[in-house]
């Protein structure tokens, strides 16, 4: 049974996708059909992650080996994968349900507008495909399946990002795709190098071969950077703030909640964390520093954003920087890893659920359900507080982290993380403020899919440690610890209040802030790339010119040669005229030669 569920995890969404494409085939076969079109986003469509949820909740481990699958397929569900699978599938499910409401306008519009229908259909096809890729990479143990899942997720998500088809969406999608392909390239290089040096086919063997390889440090660096594009490592994070605001809200939620975690999971799957012989401590230190730099810089940049989803995207970069620094700590101090691993999983799940719900909340504040304003407000506030570490899941996660880092070489890290949480609090305040400013009118019923999905999400996100199958018990922090855990949130709130006050006094936001576009370094990269491309174009043009010069020189020489050969026919008549004298001459010469020869060597003239 578990094996069947395991196989269904990626296959079920694909079957649902097939179903939607059959609808499409029907449409294509009969383009002039009148009447209402089928609902492409029906409840069946939203059931895509159900097998994964069932598998994650089903106790016990399972393994599915398929020899004919690529280079030997091996899918697993074990204790390490279970929390990841559960929170990913849950968030996908919630976001899918939410999407049914979010895209309701388009759904209703499809009866009349063919373009709208196509767009919706594309969404309906690519959503389960992205989902299948994401879940496959979680359960995959063989490297090809893992990479297949990763690539499928990455490429299919492009279609989700550019869903609206507007200019910003296309640009965001472009940034997403370019960065993702660069990441894929580094991942491929790292995987091939590491797998080749140890002839590894599974992720476990891969980690061993990174440990044992002479150039393990460089392999690990490639893998860190490659997956780092997804996981928002500072410098490679530029696609996040560009792609998130333009994607439809449910897509932003899974993008930030689950898909970026795939990068993190990539690190956990390929880097030899917790192995003392690996000698990757220097890389670990680098990861910690870069992670913390990202955590702080993203907070600073995020505050300057106006679009609430851009603010949330920067907050994701900041949070991912914190998680990355934990991974770095695990790499630089392998002894710590057994305690850190569940902390990282918890942090990832907490951030995934909470950030997902925050993104869903942006849509809610744009189209608020018919509920009392104070209720909506406080429900929007809850996940924000939780992410800042002042409530529920966030508070417990923080306590858990502190314990894991306690009394180790990296105890200072927890102070740094607390300081970064100040930034998170400010970001949350900023995001909520922007949401308030851009709030919409009460529009939807509270029983509508959108509102329901959000409500369930808020509840689930508030208590992540309570339901996450972590294999370890997460305690409520004792009262005495509370001041130590809450000061960043308090400080952040204070700061946010000061900024708000200043803004109110000055009637508007300082001009310097509005100049910080979302995507920060992207614009620099783009300018650099343009410059390089222009250089290359000049170079290739000059090469082309040289090539054609050489070719025309050859052509000229060839024509001259042919002409010379043609000229030879002029000699023909001369040959004819000269033929007889020539032969007579040759005959005479021969005779002369024979005669002379017979004089010198008497034996040659004849027998005798």
């Amino acid at each position, binding site marked *: 049974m578990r094996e069947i569920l395991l196989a269904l995890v990626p296959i079920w969404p694909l079957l649902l996708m097939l179903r939607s494409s059959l609808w499409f085939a029907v449409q*294509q076969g009969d383009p002039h059909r009148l009447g209402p079109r089928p609902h492409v986003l029906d409840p069946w469509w939203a059931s895509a992650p159900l097998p994964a949820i069932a598998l994650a909740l089903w106790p016990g481990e399972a393994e599915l080996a398929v020899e004919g*699958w*690529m280079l030997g*397929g091996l899918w697993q569900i074990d204790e390490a994968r279970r929390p990841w699978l559960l929170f990913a599938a849950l968030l996908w499910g919630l976001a899918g349900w939410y999407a049914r409401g979010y895209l309701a306008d388009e759904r209703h519009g499809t009866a009349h507008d063919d373009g709208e229908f196509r767009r919706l259909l594309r969404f309906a096809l690519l959503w389960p495909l992205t989902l299948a890729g994401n879940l496959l990479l979680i359960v995959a143990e063989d490297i090809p399946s893992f990479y297949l899942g990763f690539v499928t997720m990455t490429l299919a998500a492009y279609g989700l990002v550019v869903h609206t088809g507007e200019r910003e969406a296309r640009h965001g999608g472009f940034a997403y795709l370019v960065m993702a392909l660069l990441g894929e*390239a580094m991942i*491929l290089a790292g995987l*091939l*190098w590491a797998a*080749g040096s140890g002839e590894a086919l599974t992720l476990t063997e891969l980690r061993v071969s990174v440990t044992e390889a002479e150039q393990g440090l460089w392999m690990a660096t490639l893998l860190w950077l490659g997956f780092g594009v997804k996981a928002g490592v500072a410098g490679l994070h530029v696609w996040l703030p560009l792609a998130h605001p333009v994607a439809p809200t449910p897509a932003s939620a899974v993008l930030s909640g689950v898909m970026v975690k795939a990068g993190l999971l990539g690190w956990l799957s390929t880097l030899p964390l917790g192995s003392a012989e690996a000698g990757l401590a220097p890389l670990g230190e680098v990861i910690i520093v870069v992670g913390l730099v990202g955590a702080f810089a993203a907070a600073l940049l995020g505050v300057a954003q106006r679009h609430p989803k851009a603010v949330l995207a920067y907050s994701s970069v900041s949070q991912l920087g914190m998680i990355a620094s934990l991974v770095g700590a695990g790499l630089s101090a392998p002894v710590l890893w057994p305690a850190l691993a569940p902390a990282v999983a918890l942090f990832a799940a907490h951030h995934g659920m909470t950030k997902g719900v925050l993104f869903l909340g942006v849509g809610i504040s744009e189209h608020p359900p018919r509920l009392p304003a104070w209720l909506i407000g406080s429900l929007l506030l809850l996940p924000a507080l939780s992410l800042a570490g002042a409530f529920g899941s966030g508070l417990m996660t923080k306590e858990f982290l502190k314990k894991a880092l306690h009394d180790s070489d990296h105890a200072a890290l927890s102070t740094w993380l607390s300081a970064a949480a100040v930034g998170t609090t400010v970001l949350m305040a900023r995001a909520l403020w922007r949401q308030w400013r851009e709030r919409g009118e009460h529009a939807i019923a509270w029983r509508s899919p959108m509102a329901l999905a959000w409500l369930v999400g808020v509840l689930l996100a508030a208590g992540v440690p309570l339901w996450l199958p972590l294999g370890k018990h997460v305690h409520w922090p004792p009262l005495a610890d509370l001041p130590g855990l809450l000061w960043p949130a308090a400080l952040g709130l204070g700061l946010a209040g000061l900024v708000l006050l200043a803004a109110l006094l000055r009637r508007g936001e300082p001009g310097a802030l509005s100049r910080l576009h979302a995507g920060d370094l992207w614009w620099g990269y783009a300018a650099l790339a343009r410059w390089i491309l222009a250089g290359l174009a000049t170079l290739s043009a000059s090469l082309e010119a040289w090539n054609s010069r050489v070719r025309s020189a050859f052509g000229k020489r060839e024509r001259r040669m042919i002409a010379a050969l043609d000229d030879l026919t002029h000699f023909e008549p001369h040959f004819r005229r000269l033929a007889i004298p020539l032969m007579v001459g040759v005959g005479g010469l021969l005779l002369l030669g024979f005669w002379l020869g017979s004089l010198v060597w008497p034996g040659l003239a004849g027998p005798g």
Partner: protein
Amino acid sequence: MSEAWLPVVALAASLLVVPVIFALPERAWRARAVVNLGAALFKLLMVMLMVYGLYQGRDYNFSFTVVQGASFLLQVDAMGLMFAGLSALLWLATTVYAIGYLEDSPNRKRFFGFFTLCIASTVGIALAGNLFTFLLFYEMLTLSTYPLVAHRGHPEALRAGTIYLRYTLAGGLVLLLGVVAMHVLVGDVSFGQREMLADLGPDARPMLTVLFVVLLAGLGVKAALVPLHGWLPRAMVAPAPVSALLHAVAVVKAGAFGIVRLIYDIYGIGLSHELGLLSLLTGIAVVTILYGSVRALSQQELKPRLAYSTVSQVSYIILGISLFGPYGTIAGLSHLLHQGLMKVTLFYCAGNYAEELGIHRIDDLNGAGRRMPLTSVAFTVAALGMIGMPPVAGFITKWYLGMGALQAGMPWVIAVLVVSSLLNSAYFLPIVHRLWFRQGPAHGQGRWPEERNLGRFETSAWLLLPTAATAMFSLMTGLLAGIAFSPLDLAIFMANGEYRP
């Protein structure tokens, strides 16, 4: 047990059809289609029988002496069968495609006659048992392809044909010189008698190196190794099924297959390695891969872009076999099939766009995914495979190339692979993007260059079916690479034979 008749029958199946086709009147297209398809199916069956026999350990060969010291030899080995299998499979698909493509166009009799002759030559190349026989069919291929390249008969086609002949005949001449020199040196070399050259002793080493370079130059013209690739992009004026065949199995592949034979069956991988010839080959392959990709980027038309992509992709085969070690061999040999399947799909798609919508330029493709969804899906699958994305066949090649690079102690090759993948994405993904994400005539913006409604589906079923079938095969050979008789399985079977004699 020796069943000499099987390879002869397989060869004759294609050769004897040629006079029949030429004898049929121009108008009798049904009869021609039946003859063509029947012969193609029959050959596929013969090849399958031989594959089965080979796995059973049977041995087929057929020979007679032409002149003293040079004999005509057909023999069946795993490598030849692989090529013969590819040629049989794609012959069937391309015949179906060509029947649809050339509907109502003039000179169909001439076309199918030479088309069949061309395929017969590839079977001959695949089953040739020694250099002499190989050369015979290799030249036959050159001559039978010319009428196909110049089929349309307009000045551009004629010029392309001339350039094609110049390159390939010059290459053939160089190859002839090499073969003659080889005969002078060691006599008649059957493929697989590697010890003949290895036993020559150290004095002959410089001579062997020179000979290798001569033979490589001869074969490299057809394999489109840089800088001998100039004819390939120009030969693009040929009709789509010809381009498809040229790139996937016939001419370019014949060159690559010749190089494979040269390395494994004449010199032997061990000797090639000792002489340092493999590093030379690696260098040439790397340059070709990168150069082809860069040139492909700057092409504005679909078929030339695909042509430069072939220049680059065929060198993956060369790169694979030049990496010393079983993994490299597996990569090279399996790519022989993988590239064929994927490239043939891409050319079918290009042909479909050209026939149905009159599209030749890449920027006319906007929104074509909506008008021709199946063709566009096929194109997307094949393009992703070319980039090396899983689960399409190209990924399997790339994986083994990476393994092979490390086995040969050349990790830098991985960097080349990665750069090549990025370049491949840079010239394939924009096309895919145009197909699916841009608005075009199908969305009411502008018009297709020349729209014809060829069939009930998005285009004629004759065109659509082969496209869908080869795309399916490309996907399946990657997704189910681990099952028996997959290209990967065959390649592993052969690599084991090479390295564990």
